[in-house]
């Protein structure tokens, strides 16, 4: 069948149009091909432009977020906190103003920019007193003329301040017109300031501590740096039209954030203990420092650890500088009499606290020890030549406890020393902080250190050196009916709220004495706070405290206990547990004096500081709530 003539003509016209379009496209394709060959083979771009336009790939280390340190109730003690460093590109818009065809207008714009820079400098000075407006303006001016693109303005400001700075003249025009460069970095912040600083430790950021710095940083931050730090990540970034994005063709290592550390500290108790100690020592010029530790009886969890010493950078004010509780070893004084009493009771030399020994005018037989003149007062006041173990303990008689040690252990002093070791007072143990010192206990076989008087003086707390933590652990064992638990600071390690590594309590010695003897010891210790050397300081305490005072003297370079002018280095200690009937907490406080003529006894500052803490804990701790039963209908 033939198609109509009209249709054939129309088809030819369409074909022609299509043909022309086809030829045009063909020519265009040929041109593109030629241009492509030209660009690929002949044309050489300007190296500067090529460098700027070629997408560069840069390696970036992804810093992990450092883990938090939290207290036993989940309150933040140390956290990572972002701060801003603000810089300025002083050259922004300068070239544009200079290129303006209307030179007057360009100059006016430049003057206006500088006026805003002046207002910016003044605004910054108002927000941050360390900024000098004139000096900063001069720096910006000089930077603009010399083409400085990275002028530091302020460092380490928080977000609120950064937002205020962002609203200042010039900076409110953005980066391209105002030249504001904002960089973020994470720093370590401590919401409770310097509270428990020596225990928590201190780092500036999460850059990773070198080995030597970890050793020199005795806090938890240093000891657990590897866990808190996490693992660095790595990624490669490429420049695209939509900014710098991760290059998925390159390798990528995800950063592993640090784990959280849940400590045993109770920050409220820490605050109260800190204030209690500050209140006692802040006004005293001849105090070197003091410490106070609160520990849970059953578990050994340390709920508060205060270490105050003078900070020369703060005008000698007391701050957390030195960890006395674990890093200061000294003769414990009368708090060691408890060791002697426990030893003679445990070894069966005495059955009751009411048994007596002769007063002997305060002279320990068969030794060259000095006479204890205080016992003469006892003889005179009580018209007796005998004194009971309890009374000797109550008045903290050096004679009684020197005599008990000599009379019962002179034939075998090693037996007494072994007792000291069995009470955990001769060894160190693995503690959550670096720097726990090993006690010094003389060896009876070593004639260089063991003399005729060593055993007797050990009996009342000299010739040995102990840290406050060792003494605390020993008293805690008595409170815990003989079971010695290890003091600890880290409850567990957590990741996003889930426990990954549980630490918790551990036992050092399942039984250092029988329950009956522990109860007898409690009776002796209670007598000290009720009728003995701590009775005045403990007046008004809200629950019964079983404790012991102790005072010793530090030695001067020549080896004497006083200097040429008769000044002494006091080490006053109070250690005890409460409530005496059912002990829940043990606490120790030690005060260290500089050479002084004043007296700083264990029954003074340390006992008063502990009383304040006891009253607070006893009132606020849910453990001690009194209960009334609802009458049933």
């Amino acid at each position: 069948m033939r198609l109509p003539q009209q249709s054939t003509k129309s088809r030819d016209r369409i074909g022609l149009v299509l043909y022309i379009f086809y030829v045009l496209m063909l020519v265009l394709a040929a041109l593109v091909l030629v241009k492509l060959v030209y660009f690929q083979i002949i044309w050489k771009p300007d190296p500067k432009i090529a460098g700027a336009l070629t997408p560069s790939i840069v390696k970036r280390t992804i810093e992990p977020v450092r883990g938090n340190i939290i207290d036993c109730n989940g309150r933040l003690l140390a956290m990572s906190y972002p701060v801003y460093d603000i810089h300025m590109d002083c050259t922004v818009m300068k070239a544009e103003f200079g290129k303006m065809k209307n030179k007057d207008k360009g100059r006016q714009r430049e003057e206006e920019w500088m006026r805003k820079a002046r207002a910016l400098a003044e605004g910054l000075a108002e927000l941050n007193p360390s900024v000098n407006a004139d000096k900063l303006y001069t720096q910006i001016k000089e930077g603009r003329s010399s083409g400085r693109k990275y002028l530091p303005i302020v460092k380490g400001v928080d977000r609120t301040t950064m937002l205020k700075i962002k609203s200042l003249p010039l900076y409110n025009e953005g980066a391209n017109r105002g030249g504001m460069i904002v960089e973020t970095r994470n720093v370590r912040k401590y919401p409770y300031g310097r509270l428990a600083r020596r225990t928590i430790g201190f780092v500036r950021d999460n850059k990773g501590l070198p080995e030597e710095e970890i050793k020199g940083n005795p806090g938890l931050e240093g000891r657990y740096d590897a866990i808190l730090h996490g693992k660095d990540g790595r990624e490669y970034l490429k420049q695209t039209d939509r900014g710098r994005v991760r290059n998925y063709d390159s390798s990528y290592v995800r950063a592993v954030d640090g784990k959280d550390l849940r400590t045993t500290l109770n920050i409220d108790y820490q605050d109260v203990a800190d204030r209690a100690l500050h209140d006692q020592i802040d006004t005293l010029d001849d105090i070197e420092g003091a410490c106070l530790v609160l520990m849970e009886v059953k578990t050994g969890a340390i709920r508060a650890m205060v270490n105050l010493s003078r900070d020369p950078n703060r005008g000698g004010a007391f701050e957390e500088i030195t960890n006395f509780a674990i890093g200061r070893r000294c003769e414990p004084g009368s708090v060691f009499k408890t060791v002697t009493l426990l030893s003679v009771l445990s070894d069966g030399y005495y059955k009751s606290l009411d048994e007596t020994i002769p007063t002997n005018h305060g002279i320990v037989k068969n030794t060259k020890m000095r006479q204890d003149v205080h016992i003469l007062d006892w003889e005179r006041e009580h018209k007796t030549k005998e004194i009971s173990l309890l009374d000797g303990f109550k008045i903290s008689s050096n004679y009684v406890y020197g005599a008990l040690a000599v009379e019962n252990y002179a034939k075998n002093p090693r037996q007494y020393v072994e007792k000291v070791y069995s009470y955990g007072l001769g060894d160190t143990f693995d503690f959550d902080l670096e720097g726990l010192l090993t006690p010094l206990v003389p060896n009876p076989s070593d004639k260089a250190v063991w003399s005729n008087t060593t055993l007797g003086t050990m009996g009342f707390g000299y010739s040995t050196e102990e840290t406050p933590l060792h003494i605390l652990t020993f008293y805690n064992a008595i409170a815990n009916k003989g079971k010695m638990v290890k003091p600890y600071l880290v409850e567990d390690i957590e990741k996003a709220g889930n426990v990954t590594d549980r630490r918790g309590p551990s036992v050092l010695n399942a039984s250092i004495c029988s329950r009956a003897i522990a109860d007898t010891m409690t009776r002796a210790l209670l007598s000290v706070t009720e009728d003995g050397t701590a009775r005045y300081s403990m007046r008004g305490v809200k629950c019964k405290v079983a404790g012991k005072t102790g005072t010793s003297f530090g030695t001067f370079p020549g080896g004497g206990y006083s200097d040429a002018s008769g000044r002494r280095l006091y080490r006053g200690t109070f250690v005890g547990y409460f409530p005496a009937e059912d002990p829940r907490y043990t606490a120790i406080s030690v005060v260290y004096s500089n050479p002084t003529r004043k007296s700083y006894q264990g029954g003074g500052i340390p006992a008063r500081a502990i009383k304040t803490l006891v009253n607070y804990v006893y009132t606020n701790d849910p453990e001690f709530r009194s209960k009334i039963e609802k009458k049933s209908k």
Partner: protein
Amino acid sequence: MEQKRKWKLSDLWELLRNGFSAIITGNLLLRLNAGKYFNHIAYTFVLFWILIFESLMAENALGKIEKNNAKIKEMEIVYADKTFKVASMSRRSEVEKRLAELGSTVKEPEQQAITIE
């Protein structure tokens, strides 16, 4: 037996001429008898188009990720800032100080709480 035909330069020229005229007239693919492969050509074209389109989409998505990461980081900063401020204010002595500043008579309890069982 017929001898095999040998190629000459003129044959090559003929081929180029015919090819060029075929391109000009738009008959190249038809002369090559490529019509039967049209589906494959179209499919390859579509595949390449999808590849380019997906690449652009991926880059677009990565750009969005970076923007969202920046937003998340900003939110984290706000959260950390507020957490720090709240934690700082919760210090017992700080609370007491603020209460005193506000003239409040609220103080630490002087007696234990009593639990009714």
